[in-house]
């Protein structure tokens, strides 16, 4: 299997950070190399910002609703490709899972949120 085969296999898979936290799906891939050259995966792209290019109008709407943020995770930071994609860093270091982190303080204010 070439690197590209592996990369295409990870498209749309769940991403787990180093600590096993769910922090997004592989929404798109960044591939380098023009015609005649060997294609090379350079990064996975995560976030609603890339949805518009995945599905036309409905993808654009979903992207708009989702806030349009996109995060680039260099391919070097991917350590494992099984049924999930595992990263070598934490979500926080890579800027992933930001929505959950931002919302947490609000949820915490409700009594009993830690149960």
């Amino acid at each position, binding site marked *: 299997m070439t690197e590209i085969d592996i990369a295409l296999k990870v498209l*749309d898979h769940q991403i787990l950070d180093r600590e096993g936290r769910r922090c997004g799906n592989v929404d798109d891939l960044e591939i380098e190399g023009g015609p005649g050259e060997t294609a090379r995966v350079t990064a996975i792209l995560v976030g609603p910002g890339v949805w518009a290019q995945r599905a036309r109008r409905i993808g654009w709407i979903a992207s708009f609703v989702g806030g349009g943020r996109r995060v680039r995770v260099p391919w070097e930071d991917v350590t494992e490709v099984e049924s999930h994609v595992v990263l070598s860093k934490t979500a926080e270091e890579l800027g992933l899972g930001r929505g959950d982190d931002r919302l947490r303080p609000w949820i915490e204010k409700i009594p009993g949120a830690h149960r």
Partner: protein
Amino acid sequence: MSKIFGVALGILAAIGGFVDIGDLVFNVSAGATFGYQLMWVLPIGVVGIIVYSEMCGRIAAVSKKAVFDAVRDRVGFSAGLGALIASEVVNLMTFAAELGGVAISLQLLCGLPYRWLIALAVVGLAVVIWVTSFEWIERIFGYGGLCLLVFAVAAVKLTPDWGKFGNGFIPHVAQNNSLLYAYFVVGLLGAAMTPYEVYFYSSGGVEEEWTPKDISLNRANAIIGYGLGGFLSVALMVTGATLFLGHGISPAHLGTIALGAQVPLGEIGLLLALIGILFAVGGASIDTVFSGAYNLAQFCGWEWGRYRTNVNAPRFTLTWIVLLALGMGIVMTGVDAVVLTEYAVIFSVVALPLTYIPILLVANDEAYMGRHRNGRLANVLGVVYLVVIMVVALSAIPLMILTNVGQN
């Protein structure tokens, strides 16, 4: 010994948790309209939900993927997004119908105004979800739902014609009014194979960290739980058939359904029926809001889980809170819960192939499943049911229009 006890408790909860408002409405109405003629549809529906639940439970155990993880993986972003939107709409409709059912059964029990009770029900459900561990939620609602067994006693006490009852299990076409008959076939199948059940089941499997060792437990759970749950559906249809057929009564109100237990068993029958209905639709309300939150979180890759604390899955938590509020908004408009139920079941039939096709594909995919991929039996049944589902999905809306939502 304690393990057997645990399994038994789980099964009891599953029986109580099987019936939701869709089953209540369609089974009793089918009995009231066609007597025992539609009995044969019940085993078909029950086997269908067993086949697909077993598959997604196995997928959860082997690949650690819940339904919407697998859907997106397998059919890609744009088709997955379409399936997500359809499922979320149907889920919300189903939740609103269940919530309406909670408010109606509370109203019949205590007599307070309907709209107050809707608000009370939503607050009550939110508090229960917030403070109670999921294990207990399942038990409370599952055991409460067991009160529905009063319908089995009622069915026997109403002395059904056992010969006709038996004949009803032989598939046949209608002698008259075949469009309405077909509408009920679709509705009964839809009520038995409601999609939220598979979302909920598979996500539960991932959360409980099933491994390939749990595959036989998964199979037993699906077969026994849904199989015995189907027994309640039979009792409900018999009650409808013996009590209402020929009297021109169609149970357009949940209270009429409860009468099915009151007539043969008196006040205590009515009370048990109402409590059973309350817990059954209350449990289903929770299952449906969670399913909605699961699907969105899995599609987007967020943290999710009912075994996680609320702070550890913030967007998942927010999603179910928002769904509770949206459902409340829908029911507050005063839309009739039974009518809403019929629409929810029929539309869920239309959305069924969107979830069941990817499940079948993943369960067959060696890359995901290795040696645990579908065997011959699962595949034959899976494909047969897929054909049934496609036919039913394509005919659901036309039948709904032609029969004026089962009114003619």
